[in-house]
């Protein structure tokens, strides 16, 4: 299989970037998209050129480290799929594939296709936890949690933190990510004591990090590998309205 890659190359955060075109042969349909990039990189090394830097680790769709914009879509042409799960059989022989880094003010480019998503970590730091010291827990079954509640909490807890929601959003909003984490904990009884602090702290940080506001285009829920629904954002809003109106 033969593919023409048009890839964004950028030396560093403060350098100018541009697209470079690479024709590459010898790919197979069973290869994953990232393996095709590996393949390209091996050719580049042998030619004495620098490899294309891209983020990845688990390569099974769970760590959330991979993520680039492929042919105009976050994580490529399929819905609910990470870049590492994308396989070359989704492309045609001879096709040109355009690969760009995620674009958002809060995700500056580090190099080539690698962006800095530490803004997500800082949102988490503002309250996505339960303040309780190790070793102080009561017997687990002392807290009964209805199955539906646990299931709903798990639905949003499944977020892998890949940033596709931000990348695809016309407003670069981190609402899906932030709401998923807030709702995961605020739905559970364990999360109640800090529910308000968490809500306010994390949403404030979202703005500080210069993420945009959600206008419900719903593009994020289509790209989300964990299939988190935008109803999660609405739920976060409900919590916010309630907190503001009733304290």
């Amino acid at each position, binding site marked *: 299989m033969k593919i023409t890659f048009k890839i964004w190359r950028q030396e560093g955060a403060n350098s100018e970037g541009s697209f470079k075109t690479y024709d590459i042969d010898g790919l197979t349909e069973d290869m994953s998209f990232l393996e095709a990039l590996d393949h390209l990189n091996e050719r580049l090394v042998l030619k004495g050129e620098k490899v294309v830097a891209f*983020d990845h680790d688990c390569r099974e769709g769970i*760590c*959330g*480290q991979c993520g680039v914009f492929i042919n105009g879509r976050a994580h490529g042409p399929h819905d609910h799929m990470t870049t590492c*799960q994308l396989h070359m059989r989704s492309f045609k022989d001879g096709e040109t594939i355009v690969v760009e880094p995620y674009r958002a003010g809060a995700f500056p480019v580090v190099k080539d296709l690698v962006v800095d998503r530490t803004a997500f*970590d800082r949102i*988490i730091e503002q309250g996505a936890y339960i303040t309780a010291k190790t070793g102080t827990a009561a*017997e687990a079954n002392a807290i009964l949690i209805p199955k539906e509640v646990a*299931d709903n909490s798990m639905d949003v807890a499944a977020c892998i933190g890949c940033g596709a929601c931000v990348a695809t959003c016309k407003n670069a909003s981190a609402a899906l990510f932030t709401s998923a984490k807030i709702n*995961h904990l605020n739905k559970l009884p364990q999360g109640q004591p800090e529910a308000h602090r968490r809500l306010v702290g994390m949403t404030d940080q979202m703005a500080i990090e210069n993420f945009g506001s959600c206008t419900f285009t719903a593009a994020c829920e289509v790209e989300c590998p964990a299939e988190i629904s935008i109803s999660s954002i609405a739920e976060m809003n409900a919590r916010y309205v309630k907190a503001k109106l009733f304290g």
Partner: protein
Amino acid sequence: MTLDSKIPAGRLEDKWTSYQAKSHLINPANKKKLNILVVGSGLAGAGAAATLAELGYQVQCFCYQDSPRRAHSVAAQGGINAAKNYQHDGDSVWRMFYDTLKGGDFRSREANTYRLAELSAPLIDHFVQQGVPFAREYGGVLANRSFGGVQVQRTFYARGQTGQQLLLAAYSQLSKMIRAKKVAMFARHEVLDIVVIQGKAKGVIARDLATGEIKRFAADAVVLATGGYSRVFRLSTLAIGCNGSAIWKAHKRGAYFAAPSFTQIHPTALPQTSESQSKLTLMSESLRNDGRIWVPKKKDDNRQAKDIPEEERDYYLERRYPSFGNLAPRDIASRAAKERIDAGYGVGQLKNAVYLDFKHAINKLGKDVIQDKYGNLFSMYEKITGINAYEEPMKISPAAHFSMGGLWVDYELMTSIPGLYAIGECNYSDHGANRLGANSLLQTSIDGYFILPNTINNYLEGELKETRPDVNHPEFVKVEDEVKSQIGKILAINGHRTTDDFHRELGKVMWQECAMSRNKKGLEKAILQIKEIKDAFWKEVKVTGHDNEMNPELEKALRLADFIELAILMCTDALERNESCGAHFREEYQTEDGEAMRNDEDYKYVSVWEYDAGDFKLHKEVLEFEYVQPTVRSYK
């Protein structure tokens, strides 16, 4: 140096309690003065860093990913064991201890294994407190499932993402301490060497992966929590960046390496389909509850699975292990698959897989039931392979999965270098020669949350009197120079082969000779081959780019350089152990019908290796079994 495992005296049940009662404490004002480096942010590292910081220590934590949340603990699917006996099915700490010890084929310490079982129940309490959305019953209590061939239901789970949920809980606690400025997090930092001063671990040298800058970090103690090293096989269920570099460098600086060759090969991963494949994806073991494993009876049968009639199929697990059948333990199922594949009965493009067939289950239970149970796995299978497994059987294949071996640690989780600790998958502690399913998330978590924070004080108390060396100490300068010169050397070779090319070659040798079944001749040959690979690597590898920038190719090469050396030790270890136990199967030591033959008389010890200027010296930690008599594992 003699190996002192520091097992506390007293009854098995009381050892941990009496250890804690007797260990030295440090008052809060003094804890603030002590600095601890935690290398790794997986369940072990994040749990330890957060808990140590809560206790008042100054902590610096490292991971090579862009965020601590991505450590490979995130990928664990199945669940975590705990002796809660919520199912009222006769479980207990004792039974769990026994299952683990026996599952490990009696190659681990009773005291450690018992502590693992003892601390399992409080760990579940801890994770529930932290907001892990474990599966629940309608009544609101926690749900369990059975896992890994034990007879009780003691596995707690959060859908198919247990590892993710536990890791996110640990990461959240870590984030809390980062915000409180008690932990300084260094993401995208790879630790490349350990600094040992006057025999004690006092710091690390790390490379900032975003800028290439080499940095020195000084501390009163160093904790390694760098996870498994099965990427030495190249193709494994591990993440691409998983490495053995930090523990290997620690080994070269004097930390002993225990049972390096004990590697778990998981029977149900997706097979390799091409040369350029980079990783193997795990398919949950639970599929074996309803799927039947088979290969064609005819060699090189090129017919489609559906065209092969029942009587021409060999359900080899059912044939060989009538009582356990398709549910035989991991090591046995993997080995049986390898036997068939090697004998020429493999299926798939590269003839390296076996069928996992749901036809019978679908006929019997209906497609809906199967879909309900395994729907997400079937769709994951389709995403990766493009094949609909309701219509044709899955193709699966064994894959390297977990390192039982690791840095030797004593009861306090301290390595043979004072002040250097190893926790989580990177140590050799509780699993013996084979790990039970769902026991690893457990071990890794309790190491970080419960054990280390209660043992490290015993050492640090002594360090209070000493001044912490500063990063300008000559030893720091020396180690940094060594790191830099290694980087310079690799970049200067400018050969004609890529790092991946060498890794593939290494992986093939390791997979052939040091995986599911091993023999003397093969291992001896492998050692020679790997030494050749090493020579060639240092002459012919080509790495482009510079050291002072983000350079993924350089990262790979540095990791591979360490893997190559580690591989030699793994083969040396496998060669030395003239018995078959757990995952270590030596072809020379098997019964007539091909089952493992353990030799307690001569090998009832943990092989502990000391690095000796390029060579390895064996020490033996003889295992005493006071409470349990080793028996033969049989799954016939």
